[in-house]
């Protein structure tokens, strides 16, 4: 129990380290947010712009100011989008990425677990083959090939689904599949390996020896254990999915956080960049913690 409390207590420390590293590393990169193609109208105007964001102060004071605001949950103003704060931008885009990520997670689990399990049982050779093929294709075809392919076929040729944008449920189908299929393939591999391992283990042999039906053996005794590798990967995977995939969101013009991961660096929007990193770190920590808790609950060996 004590170790769990320590892990939770470490989260703010970790966020502080991340914010500090982000703050100073980004300042070391050449070019800044106020380097623009069109020079400011005058030195006065440029100075006024910098003063507005406290860039006229020494770096240490800017850092303390940033930390002070951060402690109050204020990530500061975006240096690129002058009518928005970082909190505001995250507030608008995070729910979108979360819903896309959750759906893709659903696809990954919903397809990956049954396919992997059926393949591992080896009862049907064709099922194993189909599963292997799906897995191979899913893992090998990158998102930036699969996405345009789905758009071309389902969007432009067959005209079944919209090619981009976000609003109606049917906007979500193609991006969810594009993002989810790759992870479904990985889940099915973990599941298949986990299941094959478990089926050979003594406790399953014992269950079979007790004369339980094969269905009961698989569902009650093998499945929970076979899920362990999937659960331990699920945390980081969910974090990846929930923070938005730059490629998928960009391809389908989805107003999520993905765009900011890349663009805030290119535009040297330091506050936005650090905001994104903090958000990602926090999510990763929380989900890791969550999947460890889940593992502990499913697997009695860890509790011991």
């Amino acid at each position: 129990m004590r170790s769990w409390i320590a892990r939770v207590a470490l989260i703010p420390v970790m966020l502080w380290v991340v914010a500090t590293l982000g703050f100073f590393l980004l300042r070391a990169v050449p070019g800044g947010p106020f380097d623009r193609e069109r020079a400011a109208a005058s030195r006065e105007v440029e100075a006024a712009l910098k003063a507005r964001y406290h860039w006229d102060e020494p770096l240490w004071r800017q850092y303390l100011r940033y930390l002070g605001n951060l402690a109050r949950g204020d990530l500061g103003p975006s240096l690129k989008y002058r009518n928005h704060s970082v909190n505001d931008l995250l507030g608008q885009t995070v729910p979108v990425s979360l819903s896309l990520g959750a759906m893709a997670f659903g696809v990954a689990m919903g397809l990956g677990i049954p396919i992997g399990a059926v393949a591992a049982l080896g009862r049907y050779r064709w099922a194993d083959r189909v599963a292997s093929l799906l897995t191979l294709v899913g893992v090998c075809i990158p998102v930036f090939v699969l996405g345009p392919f789905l758009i071309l076929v389902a969007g432009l040729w067959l005209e079944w689904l919209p090619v981009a944008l976000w609003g109606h449920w049917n906007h979500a189908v193609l991006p969810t599949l594009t993002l989810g299929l790759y992870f479904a393939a990985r889940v099915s591999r973990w599941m298949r390996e986990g299941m094959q391992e478990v089926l050979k283990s003594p406790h399953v042999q014992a269950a079979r020896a007790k004369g339980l039906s094969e269905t009961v053996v698989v569902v009650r005794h093998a499945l929970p254990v076979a899920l362990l590798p999937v659960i331990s990967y699920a945390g980081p995977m969910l974090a990846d999915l929930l923070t938005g995939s730059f490629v998928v969101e960009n391809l389908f013009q989805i107003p999520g956080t993905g765009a900011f991961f890349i663009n805030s660096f290119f535009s040297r929007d330091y506050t936005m960049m650090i905001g994104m990193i903090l958000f990602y770190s926090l999510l990763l920590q929380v989900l890791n913690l969550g999947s460890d808790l889940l593992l502990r609950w499913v697997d009695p060996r860890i509790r011991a």
Partner: protein
Amino acid sequence: MFLVLLVAFLILGGGAGCSPADRADLVLHNGPEPETIDPQILTGQADGRIASALFEGLTRFNPTNGLAMPGLASRWDISPDGRTYTFHLRPEARWSTGEVITADEVVWSWRRAVTPTTAADYASQFFCIRNGRAIVNGELRDASQLGAEAPDARTVRVHLENPTPYFLELVASRVFFPVPRKAIEQQGDQWIRADPLPCSGPYLLEGWRVNDRFRLRRNPRYWDADRVATERIDILSGDNPSTALNLFLKGEVDLISDRKIIPGELGPELAQRPDFQRFDYLGQDFIRFNTTRKPFQDARVRRAVAMAIDRSRITARITRMGERASAAVTPAGTGGYEPPAGLPWDPSAARALLSEAGYPGGRGFPVIEYTFNVGSRIYEQTGVEVQSMLREHLGIRVELRPLEWKTYLAEMSALNYDFIRGSWVGDYDDPMTFLDIFLSDSGNNRTGWKDSRYDRLLQTAAAEADPRRRLGILRQAETLLVEEAVPVTGLYSHVGLYAADPRKVGGIWANRMDEHPFFSMRRLRP
């Protein structure tokens, strides 16, 4: 698991309220998310398009030719010396929230623009107004010294430093838009997010979702509301050109308003289609030389390099949209002006110049770097082409130095380069918008070149009341710039491209300024 899916669907459906059945009457793709839509602060073209839907100046752009026509002012008088403009505001000019737009508010808005603490990058557009430059430069602390006054509630009088033939177009540009004083005094910088936002233009802001869309609705209090044919417009924000093209091809977008959001590699092919419109655009690509260090300290070397570049090869092989190859800085026809031809392509004369400068056959010439910003096939291929032409004709070795955008800008401003790609898009249809970049004290000069002769010529031209003579003096200045001193040499003038099927969208015309006001735009058939 499936619960998760269900919940996600609910969030998705509930959050947006923009289902396809809900399609606006007209849908535009506007390119990347605007940085701001505050008329005085914004600089980007995407930003400006939104602002010009919501606000209007004393004049506005004529959609057919990009010239000024009456806006919030119904008429104006110009003094015989061309230095005093008196605008008469329409009595029906009102904010969408009901208040009358007063002359005082116009003057207040302009003072807001020139006050340095507002941090308006475009404040330099006010340099033509008396004391504008001094206030922006911080030499005059009192913005009320700006040469603009409101003798009564409906009259704005402006005193210019010089007769400025493009002043009426300037007044139509974003930075001159009157803004709602009361809202700004109450809410400061964030006034633009006010709900309801007081608007003076043809449209009201109904919704704004970052990286998704602006939703606009016809402004019933707009003075010209009867002419506004479209009830609802969605303006999409996104930065993937292929996605924009897909949306356009599927009919979900009626207009792609910016060449940057049309896939560059498909440009030449798309330009052939009837639903894509190509036009000469007020922009120019050029190469800057760093005149502060060897070897480009020497004007002969700069001229030699300028003469060894075959620009027609770049336009024929790389840009391929019918761009006009040009060694000048101002695109031909800008404000009725014909720029000098610039140095001709002449490899043997170039070699002679180079050996005169002490590098016969390129011997002893240092390896130089050509810097450009990454992200466009065109810039990269142009670099390769320049590299091979200089090797072939001058025996010079060039290394390519691709830089990411912000680094590129920082290096250019710090004069940390040998020669570098550059470009400029005109703010108004007059050669001055290109030529004043290279004034000695201009922050956009970025070549280290300072020449008092050039500065004086531009000053003389600005004070010249006769338009023909004025253009003649500007031509003299540009000849000095691109044929004699050559801190910069032109490559080609830009070609614009927008996607709109003339059978489906009306009220939009190609013009050099790429100004497409919303009041006239409409969808012809669903």
